[in-house]
């Protein structure tokens, strides 16, 4: 599994399609924290809201990095769809976690308000939860669940856009509500759990569809 993860990660990095979501993430983070972004936890709410669609975009990049034919060769070489889709999910989660760590560290360095270790870990949990939700949504609508990249983009865009107005009815809303009111909540861990469940469901859906 490690060699498969290494191969898929190397393929994504070679393809350079990851640059678009990465640059959007870095650009918006720069804007968010160009001035006083508020109290520590409050400041994390903007970057958590940002990480959700960015992680979804990155997951679609990972899922579609290999074209259909090369994916078939990888499936045969690795011994089945379940191994390949699990490895692809791990790569997407890995990239999302790197962004979650970056988003958690960024305001510690740039925001004028002092951050405690507790603030940092709450932020890390919030970002991790939002990133996992994004990866889950991205994988759920990417190949092999939906074969056409056009449908994938439309479906992911629709789900991401619809998530925000639903407020506290979604796990993303739990996180943003807690951070926005500058309070720690168990719902942050709940979001991580829901995110992991969504990623697992996406892998299962992919294996069934393939």
């Amino acid at each position, binding site marked *: 599994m490690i*060699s*498969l993860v*290494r*191969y898929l990660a*190397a*393929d994504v990095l*070679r*393809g*350079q399609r990851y640059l678009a979501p990465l640059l959007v993430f870095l650009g918006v983070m720069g804007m968010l924290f160009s001035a006083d972004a508020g109290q520590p936890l409050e400041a994390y709410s903007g970057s958590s809201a940002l990480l959700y669609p960015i992680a979804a975009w990155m997951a679609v990049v990972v899922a579609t990095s290999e*074209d259909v*034919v*090369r994916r*078939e*060769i*990888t*499936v*045969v*070489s*690795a*011994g*089945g769809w379940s191994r390949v889709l699990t490895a692809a999910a791990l790569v997407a989660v890995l990239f999302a976690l790197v962004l979650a760590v970056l988003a958690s560290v960024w305001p510690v360095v740039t925001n004028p308000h002092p951050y405690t270790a507790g603030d940092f870990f709450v932020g890390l949990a919030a970002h991790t939860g939002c990133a996992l939700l994004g990866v889950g949504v991205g994988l759920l609508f990417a190949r092999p669940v939906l074969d056409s990249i056009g449908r994938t983009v439309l479906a992911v865009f629709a789900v991401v856009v619809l998530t925000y107005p639903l407020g506290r009815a979604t796990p993303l809303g739990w996180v943003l509500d807690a951070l926005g009111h500058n309070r720690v909540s168990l719902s942050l861990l709940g979001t991580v759990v829901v995110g992991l469940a969504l990623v697992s469901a996406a892998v299962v859906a992919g294996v069934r569809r*393939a």
Partner: protein
Amino acid sequence: MGGYLGVVLLDQVSKRYGRGPWVLRDLTLEVSGLTVLTGANGTGKSTLLKIAAGVLKPTSGRVSRPASVGYVPERFPSDVKMSASSYLAHMGRVRRAGANDVLERLGFVGSMTAPMSELSKGNAQKVALAQAFLATDVLVLDEPWSGLDPRASDELVALLEGRTALVSDHEGHLASATRVDLAGGHVTIELSRVLEPDVLQALEGVRSVQARGSSVRVVVAPDRSDQVLAEALRLGCSVRSVR
């Protein structure tokens, strides 16, 4: 149905995409040596190869294959950014297999470190073949001669000697291999009291012989079914059904 080393078994395999027409119907095939698939375009050769390799699931029927299968698709993609050396190294690690000399034997002349998108069609095909030959048990190759020069084509024939492989071949490169014509369909004969199944397997037109409890299922090319039935009766078998 249990698989055993180096043999692919397809048992009553059918395939349709969604609600579309049937691409394959009730196909039974045992691949234990070099087997060539023939048939016109659209007869289901690539679909059958994908099912045999494990890329596609059949709509119905069962497939048994060994652990290490090598697969070459009909068209290797031309826009791969990874270099040939990186790709083969990664595939070797994924398979836990060492390097092979297939590229050298096929006469690869491109850059091993440049992106594969810069390779010619023939050289990209050689890379695709080299990754498939990392497999130890069975090869599933869809028109593997596509883009190869005559010397590489002859070398590929030599590389396939003694291997278990299912190959689609329009050009007749493998004259001595068992041939399965998908366009021609097949006849399935159920026999009982079979004392010499090896004799049946050796008859011309017989594609597979499978023991199923007290009976034996023989899959035969349609134009040879009468001769095989006559020979089975001569050997003392009882005929249970012919479909």
